[in-house]
């Protein structure tokens, strides 16, 4: 499984993501700088978390217009697997790869804590080693993770089984519509999620609940 991790100025969880990918899948991802115009040949592109361009404009808006995003968008439409986590989710949503938008948390504060995630769809490249309906622990760390979209889009996401992860057991940390924590595009090639599974894969992290998500990449 070959993967690439895209780095924009201000991204800061690229090391965490690369460590998780390497630890679980056994192969070291390539780091791709935002000014590059073409992706190397890989099976998966990850847009990691952080504060690209300081989140000084709308979060993710500037990074979404970087040169590398043109190529990611084009290849994603042809089926390249793309995973966006936290700021990465915001970036790929701004880039139009996923519908909706992430806005300020309902209580207007940044939040770093463990939440419960329910795996709503286990037929994806990132969840195929999980049971449908399984509930796992996973940390969040964001100030703008409140997922919203119009009623029509929400209806479609639910009807088409495109909500991949939902906050469970009353742990929605940001006020997201329908407790949405992660979604995918129509074809399932693009997944975006706010929580940080890369921070819960080894005993040092307290739990290893999110390791199977990365193991799923090997099967896909």
């Amino acid at each position: 499984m070959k993967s690439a991790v895209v780095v924009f100025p201000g991204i800061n969880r690229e090391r965490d993501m690369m460590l998780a990918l390497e630890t679980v899948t056994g192969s070291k991802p390539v780091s791709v700088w935002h000014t590059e115009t073409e992706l190397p040949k890989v099976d998966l592109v990850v847009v990691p978390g952080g504060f690209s361009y300081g989140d000084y404009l709308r979060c993710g808006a500037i990074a979404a217009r970087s040169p590398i995003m043109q190529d990611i968008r084009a290849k994603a439409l042809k089926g390249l697997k793309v995973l966006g986590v936290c700021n990465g989710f915001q970036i790929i949503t701004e880039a139009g790869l996923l519908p909706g938008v992430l806005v300020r948390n309902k209580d207007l504060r940044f939040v770093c804590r463990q939440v419960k995630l329910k795996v709503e769809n286990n037929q994806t490249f990132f969840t195929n080693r999980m049971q449908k309906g399984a509930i796992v622990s996973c940390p969040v760390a964001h100030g703008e993770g409140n997922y919203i979209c119009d009623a029509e889009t929400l209806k479609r996401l639910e009807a088409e089984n495109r909500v991949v992860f939902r906050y469970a057991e009353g742990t929605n940390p940001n006020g997201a519509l329908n407790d949405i924590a992660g979604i995918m595009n129509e074809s399932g090639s693009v997944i975006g999620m706010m929580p940080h599974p890369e921070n819960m894969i080894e005993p040092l992290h307290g739990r290893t609940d999110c390791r199977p998500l990365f193991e799923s990449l090997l099967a896909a």
Partner: protein
Amino acid sequence: MTLAHDTKITPDLVKSHGLKPDEYERFVKLLGREPTITELGICSAMWNEHCSYKSSKKWLKTMPTKGARVIQGPGENAGVIDIGDGDAIVFKMESHNHPSFIEPYQGAATGVGGILRDVFTMGARPIAAMNALRFGEPAHPKTRHLVAGVVHGVGGYGNSFGVPTIGGEVNFHARYNGNILVNAMAVGLARADSIFYSKAKGVGLPVVYLGAKTGRDGIHGATMASAEFDDKAEEKRPTVQVGDPFTEKCLLEACLELMASGAVIAIQDMGAAGLTSSAVEMGAKGDLGIELDLDKVPCRETGMTAYEMMLSESQERMLMVLDPSREKEAEAIFHKWGLDFAIVGKTTDTLRFVIKHKGQVMADLPIKQMGDEAPEYDRPWVAPKLQPVLTNAPAPGDLKAAILKIVGSPDMCSRRWVWEQYDSLIGSNTAQIPGGDAGVVRIRGKKAIAVSTDVTPRYVEADPFEGGKQAVAECWRNLTATGADPIAITDNLNFGNPERPEIMGQFVHAIKGLSEACNVLAFPIVSGNVSLYNETNGQGILPTPAIGGIGLIPDVDLMATIAFKNADDVILQVGGHGTHLGQSIYLREVLGKEEGAPPPVDLALEKTNGDFVRGLIRAGHVSAVHDVSDGGLGLAVIEMAMASGLGASLVLLTHEQLFGEDQARYVITASPAQAAAITAAAAKAGVALEQVGTVTAEPTLKIASGPSISVADLRIAHEGWFPAYMSGEL
């Protein structure tokens, strides 16, 4: 521009620059002529208390700073210690008190930014941050606003920069009503053979300006503006700097990339007194002159004068001396990260600090005297009046109510509302988040470090010497309670006006106490910061020498945490029963009194008991460990229960035994089989140890012949206060 180069230097102008008449005379004598306005500004920036340590230097020199693991002690951007395998830890704590009171978000944010920069200037990647915050009483009308702004600022900067904030302290006391304390600590990881220093080397080498542009923010940050300077709207900008964590993150990556290339000869960040102090320090340390051409300085605003450029405290800037053959390479790295790169001067052999602007010499000063030879004072001091030992502290009428009151009090309740706003996990190496005895981050493999910040200001107020000892001892104990070997500390000495002999007396006695503890515990001070004049209307803050310590954990799998692990484990108390209620939380929260002498610290006992506990942790003989501090044994056990969801059944205990804050004590748990062996080992080691209870599956705290309180009720009280207070419900 309002201060023309030919501005006449009047006594008022000198005074408004914070210089005393005799200091100004000293300056004129040094120059052999009247200074220019730019020179006066430079002098005020270098000779103020913040930059020169003129009141504290005499006493700082007496503190223990050496040890087998010390690579760099005080005097550089941060201290450096050796943690083996070629790894070094670079760390320091620094205050940003006054700006944070004026503008809490930016004040706290730039406090965090400044200390992170100190650490990566030395070639280290920041791997952990902490902060020690002190606010006024909760009922004070400004407190809620200040807490919200400071916490938001600390998180806003650290989260975006990308460093895990793994712990800290938050206290409330009326004595901080007019002067809050924001002390930020940063910890970085470097290779021991690749530490970068500020000492310039080589004549005729390029002096390079890197990072963000220079603006008018923070002018007089170190001296504070006065009416003469801000009678025009243009200059009424706050003296508080504005932080940009995005630029700092880019600056970090660019600096580390450039350092790895081998092009950097010397580097100094621009903190307090900006370009002035960074250039003077590099030159003075290297016995070189520095010549700057201000026409080359990247400016954010038009029409900036030499005076403004030299005094600006705009953030996220660095000064370097570069290998001239590597200029192009260095420039490319900085442009890649979208940062300014400008050659603004050169090193010289004249030992002069020369500033040119628009073809004119604006300043020409002897560099050594501006840096190393600033005035130094031996301020008069008087021995502090000590509080007598408290003799009578009655038992509570209702023990259950007393416990719930303490657990839910502003100083003892959960700080979750605070630390959940800090990213504590970034880096994927966090082994202990806030809420335990210390934060823990992995270095690599099984090696980890523990970090803790500590001081009990009410103890220091009652007895600065014992309180100073206690601050160091508690930090040492907190690190030990995770299983770490305490290695070294940084200190942030926050006091009132040193020109008052009683304040200076607090300072001197606290330093003596800190020093004694550092000596006995082999826990040297490798970096630090002094913040004086924390005073409003003649009332100083509680003396607050905050201590930030680092400990080394060889095998993180054996790290101890405070949470109970198994029902039926035996609860043991190490260090004997509590007896001392003077200055205790019980006395204050339940009896409403702040009286008495603080608990004395027996440093030899501290070491014996701590070494014993660490040995048990390293051998894997204990299941949970917690130090006994604020609130005594009772609070320690309750925190262990709340962290686990298990309960505890305690033996019959007096209120002194439950709430006494005697030092050198720990609570540990172990299986019944192991407990017998531990008891025998304690007897052999001469360590006082007794069983005080048992861990129970039922989540209830039961005290023999006393009340039962469910852990759920304890948690409600513990978790409730902070969110309720911040939402305005209290």
